[in-house]
């Protein structure tokens, strides 16, 4: 990685950089670019907002009738001879 990182390359590595997967000179160059580039910072904020929204999406709970159906299925297959 060059010491001068363009925005396109910085944005390609945004998830790597934010997860701490860029080490040494690569990590330092990435961090420097994100410190000085307002446009990349704006994009990073958009991506962070996206991740925040994804993580805040309500989790689906298992439906009671599905759980009952699986339990019946397992009970039925237990009763079957295996082989």
């Amino acid at each position, binding site marked *: 990685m060059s010491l001068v990182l*363009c*925005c396109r390359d910085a944005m390609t590595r945004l998830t790597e950089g934010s997860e701490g997967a860029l080490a040494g000179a690569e990590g330092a160059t990435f961090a420097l670019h994100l410190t000085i580039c307002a446009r990349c910072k*704006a994009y990073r904020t*958009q991506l962070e907002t996206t991740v925040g929204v994804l*993580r805040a*999406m309500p989790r*689906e709970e298992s439906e009671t009738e*599905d759980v009952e159906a699986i339990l019946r299925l397992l009970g039925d297959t237990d009763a079957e001879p295996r082989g």
Partner: protein
Amino acid sequence: MGAADREQEGALVGRILAGDAAALRLLIEREHATLLRFARAITRDDDLAQEVVQDAWIRIHRSLATFEKRSSLRTWMARIVINRAKTLTVRAARWVPFAEEAEAHEDAVDPACFTPRGFWRESPSRWHAETPERLLDRQQVTAAIQAEIAELPTAQRAVLTLRDLEGWDSQEVCNALEISESNQRVLLHRGRSRVRAGLAKVMP
């Protein structure tokens, strides 16, 4: 997943193997929705996903005694779901290996946004700082996100589902999908970038 969680998981498996019906019910209540959402992500077909997960539960139940705790229980169960999905979709010639998708070229950001030297032509807009919960109150935001997730390529959808919707850590996702850390991050970044692009259309 921490050591305490793994210990609890081991205790739950022990109770199920000892014939404790309440423990089996608890496992199904806790994991069925996740397995179903994951199966939908990798099969892209609701009916097939139901079939895959039912079949997977039978296999999980029958082979629980062989679970060796080298990975987390949910990783092991996800692998069973993948194997069943592979078997059923390979028959329909629809299975694309996850790593293959990661290695194909794809720009996370539209190349038209950059100058030939790779700098932004225009600044990305500044999104108003609203909490994720406030954003999700808007029906169009939820709808845009769901639509983008549904359109993601299979491997991106699988990684994003487990990492961002189900909250798994990267190691668990790599183990479940049998992909490298690097491929996992590439797929996650592309998936998040596509969802961001969809969200951008409805952001104020």
